[in-house]
């Protein structure tokens, strides 16, 4: 009878390629996220609006279906820039809910039990770790936002013919970059918050708070001071102006009041004053600033040891 | 089921039940003391809900170093928390030098506890941390500064006194906590694994400090896992397992009482077979095994005194070249092995 010695042995097999090693973190994280039933249901719910949009596009180009439902084609929503603008806004809102559920445990679970040294003592740099975690959010959100958007766009183009496609070609770039800006902003923000806080629930709360509290505060300031600059600190308002800018539908003036103003021309007379939205470049600047702060926070917190000066 | 019946009755060293407190067999040099001068546990048991902390513990701790030894979760920390009033016993009575743990004002004048919680007020330096809690005792500013200085000097942490504790290594944090527990010169010192994380030099220093405090009549109750250090520094040992006191008393005393495990000795010499043959001619040699490098002999005997004298005779007659002679299991490690590991069996 042969007695086999199962001793500790080195590994002689071939090692993974760098890419497949990079994909380890997203693969494990995705498997972990889709374990929770709540998230999978919400993920499916996100596809309701794209379905509705597809039906709408289909109805536009199908005469007898219209006749069947006795709807006149003119009453239908026209498929144009504003259609896709509302599509992007809807899907990005759904994307935010998804992120609030997906992102927090990504880093906070590793931070709470000091697992970072285990990651970083392996052939994995800090950037690869963060990018790996980020790719989970980017992948999920892309599935929900610009991928269905472009599919619907090409579905419409195939039905509407070449002329329509040639005329609206610029819209592809608008849909894609609109969604990508939101995806990158959200993933950086979510991961930064997730690395600051050890408990998952608190991280989700903080992310929600970061979104709703400044927006509410911005509205209060707008009401109290009768201006529109409160929108600068409200994330949603800034993104809306960026999206409308991308789709060429940006309107500066969004309100008017009668007020007494003393300027060189008028001395304390009652006159109409226009309430102007912050200009587009300022919105882009705000978003860039937030991303920079998040990257800086991640660089400081994602570290294998505590540095105490 | 009283603990004493679990293992042979004589294991529990002759501490008669506490109904009439008698002197323990710890060290003969301490005269019989009334409960005023002892730390007494009477039928103490503690349950966290249904989880057993300790069960019907009867102990009398005399001045000097008493070590609590036992696997993780055997109730060492529970006993210490009970003794210092951080936990209330489910039933039974505890007396520390005449006062009970639930009168904090009286008891903590003379008791210091260095626990395992490695936590400090945020941003405090070592000096601030100690002065922080000394002020609560009611000392004046001058007294606090003086006591803090002395305590830090004892654990040789004076030069790092004004640096932030959060930047300290594990060993240095441990020393600061130790200093905090002895700052108000208590007469009873309870320490939960005080040497955890200390470097060898610091361990020797701190053990000498404990020895110094014990010789000055202080009561030191120390829990530790490093058995050879416990052997070296403690006057009496309490072995705990699954919440029961398995054995208690001076190490050698406890060892002699484990009848079913005869004393084992390793003799390293040049011709072990001859030595074995001659030793077997006498009935008190129970077992002999040749060491696998054929240069040594493991011998087990029930009557060590006669055995050693026979050994002298055999060695001189056979003129054997002796390399070394050493009892293999006369220390706490062996006692731990026989009483806890073999009986308890670790569940993986």
């Amino acid at each position, binding site marked *: 009878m042969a007695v086999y010695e199962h001793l*500790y*042995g*080195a590994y002689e*097999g*071939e*090692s*993974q390629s760098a890419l*497949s*090693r990079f994909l*380890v973190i997203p693969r*494990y994280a995705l498997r972990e996220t889709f374990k929770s039933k709540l998230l999978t249901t919400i993920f499916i719910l996100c596809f309701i609006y794209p379905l509705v949009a597809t039906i709408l596009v289909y109805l536009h180009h199908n005469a007898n279906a219209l006749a069947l439902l006795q709807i006149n084609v003119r009453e239908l929503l026209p498929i144009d820039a504003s259609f896709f603008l509302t599509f992007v806004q809807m899907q990005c809102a759904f994307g935010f809910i998804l992120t609030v559920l997906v992102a927090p445990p990504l880093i906070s679970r*590793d931070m709470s*039990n*000091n*697992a970072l*040294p*285990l990651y*970083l*003592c*392996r*052939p994995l740099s800090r950037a690869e770790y963060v990018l790996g975690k980020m790719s989970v959010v980017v992948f999920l959100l892309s599935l929900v936002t610009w991928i269905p958007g472009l599919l619907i766009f090409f579905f419409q183009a195939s039905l509407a013919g070449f002329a329509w496609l040639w005329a609206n070609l610029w819209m592809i770039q608008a849909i894609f970059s609109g969604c990508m800006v939101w995806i990158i902003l959200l993933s950086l923000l979510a991961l930064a918050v997730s690395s600051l806080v050890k408990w998952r629930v608190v991280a989700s709360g903080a992310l929600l708070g970061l979104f709703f509290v400044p927006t509410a505060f911005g509205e209060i300031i707008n009401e109290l001071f009768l201006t529109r600059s409160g929108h600068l600190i409200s994330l949603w308002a800034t993104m809306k102006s960026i999206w409308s800018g991308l789709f060429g539908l940006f309107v500066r003036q969004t309100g008017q009041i009668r007020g007494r103003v003393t300027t060189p021309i008028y001395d304390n007379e009652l006159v109409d004053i226009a309430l102007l939205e912050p200009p587009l470049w300022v919105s882009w600047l705000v978003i860039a600033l937030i991303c920079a702060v998040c990257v800086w926070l991640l660089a400081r917190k994602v570290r*294998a040891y505590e540095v105490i*000066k | 089921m009283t603990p004493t019946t679990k293992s042979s009755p004589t294991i529990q060293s002759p501490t008669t039940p506490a109904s009439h407190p008698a002197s323990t067999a710890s060290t003969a040099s301490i005269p019989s003391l009334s409960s005023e001068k002892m730390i007494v546990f009477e039928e103490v048991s503690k349950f966290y809900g249904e989880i057993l902390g300790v069960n019907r513990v009867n102990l009398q701790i005399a001045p000097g170093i008493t070590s609590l030894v036992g*696997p*993780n*979760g055997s109730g060492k920390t529970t006993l210490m928390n009970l003794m210092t009033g951080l936990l209330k016993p489910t039933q039974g009575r505890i007396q520390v030098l005449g006062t009970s743990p639930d009168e904090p004002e009286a008891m903590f004048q003379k008791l210091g506890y260095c626990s395992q919680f490695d936590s400090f007020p945020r941003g405090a330096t070592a000096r601030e941390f100690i002065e922080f809690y000394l002020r609560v005792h009611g000392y004046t500013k001058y007294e606090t500064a003086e006591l803090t200085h002395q305590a830090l000097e004892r654990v040789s942490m004076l030069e790092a006194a004004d640096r932030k504790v959060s930047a300290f290594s*594990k*060993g*240095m944090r441990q020393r600061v906590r130790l200093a905090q527990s002895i700052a108000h010169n208590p007469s009873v010192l309870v320490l939960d694994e005080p040497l*955890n*994380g*200390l*470097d*060898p*030099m*610091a361990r*020797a220093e701190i*053990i*000498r400090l404990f*020895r110094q405090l014990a*010789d000055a009549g202080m009561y030191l109750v120390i829990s530790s*896992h*490093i058995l050879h250090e416990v052997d*070296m520094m403690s*006057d009496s040992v309490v072995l705990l397992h699954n919440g029961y006191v398995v054995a208690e008393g001076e190490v050698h005393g406890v060892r002699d009482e484990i009848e079913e495990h005869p004393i084992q000795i390793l003799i390293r010499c040049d011709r072990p077979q001859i030595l074995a043959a001659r030793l077997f001619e006498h009935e008190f040699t129970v077992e002999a095994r040749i060491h696998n490098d054929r240069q040594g002999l493991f011998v087990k005997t029930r009557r060590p*005194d006669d055995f*050693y*004298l026979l050994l*002298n005779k055999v*060695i*001189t007659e056979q*003129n054997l*070249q*002796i390399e*070394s*002679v*050493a*009892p293999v299991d006369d220390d706490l490690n062996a006692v731990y092995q026989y009483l806890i590991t073999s009986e308890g069996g*670790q569940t*993986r």
Partner: protein
Amino acid sequence: MTNVIELEQLSVTFGKRPILKSLNGALGGRAIGLLGPNGAGKTSLIHTLLGFHPPTSGTARIFGQDITTDAKQVRATVGYMPESDSFIAKMSCVHFVRLMAELSGIPAKHALERAHEALFFVGLGEARYRPVDSYSLGMKQLAKLAQAIVHGPKLIILDEPTNGLDPPTRSRMISLIRQIRDGGRARILLSSHLLRDVEECCDEILVLKDGRIAANCNLEEERKANRKFIELETRGERQGFVEAVGNLGCEYALSGERRMKLIMNETIEIGDLYRLAHEHAVQIRRLNFKRDSLEDIFLKAMENGNITEGANSSINNEKAVENGNGRANDGGL
């Protein structure tokens, strides 16, 4: 014996405080013990070797690979077991070790086999399917060891593996480390404060003292028995025996009522001691040659670190504390 670690003027400073001051040396032992007082820079050295932070100047090579330029290759061949608790919560141990294996470059299809192999080796039986945060301290250490060896590294760095473990788990951990060392496939760098554990596991030691190398020696050579000193522990009336030994012409010192230290000159054999013991009916309970224990080597390293500390006076007391079994306050040699 190819060198495991080569240090070339490796120095590290945090902010203004210099932590490692231009370390030089080559370590070739199968298991290297890293010793030093608190705050001597042990953990910083480990972190630098792992590339957690770049050295301020100089560099080091592990199996010939430079830790700054090809850090990734170095980390692929190194396994690290951190000192503090580190695991990923709410994840079964098998899943956790498998993730770590894949992160170290083992393809997905082999990773599960390797994970079970490592867990079988460290002895985590059924518990491997439970989440790691339900483990006791001892089992967490074993899980950490499993993740350090799962990808078959050539060098395993263990930071305080036996700290805080109870005796049975500690001896289990030590036997595992010895098995890995004797397996010959991987070298070990063990940082610990428990000298007995280092003595049992390591064959080479590196002692650091506030950022400098205080000693770097092979343990076997240092600990050869020096024939001259003998320590005895007797039982029974020893006065006659002591005089007899005295007039045999060898110096002796009594410490406590049972222990005795002798300096043997060439003429006297141990046989003579036994002949006298037999004549005076004295039991020799313990007899051994004086060997430098790791503690003595450590103290010597600390002492020549800074002579001014005047540690000589405490050396004897030190030895008394280390070897004596009873109370520690009996006089030295």
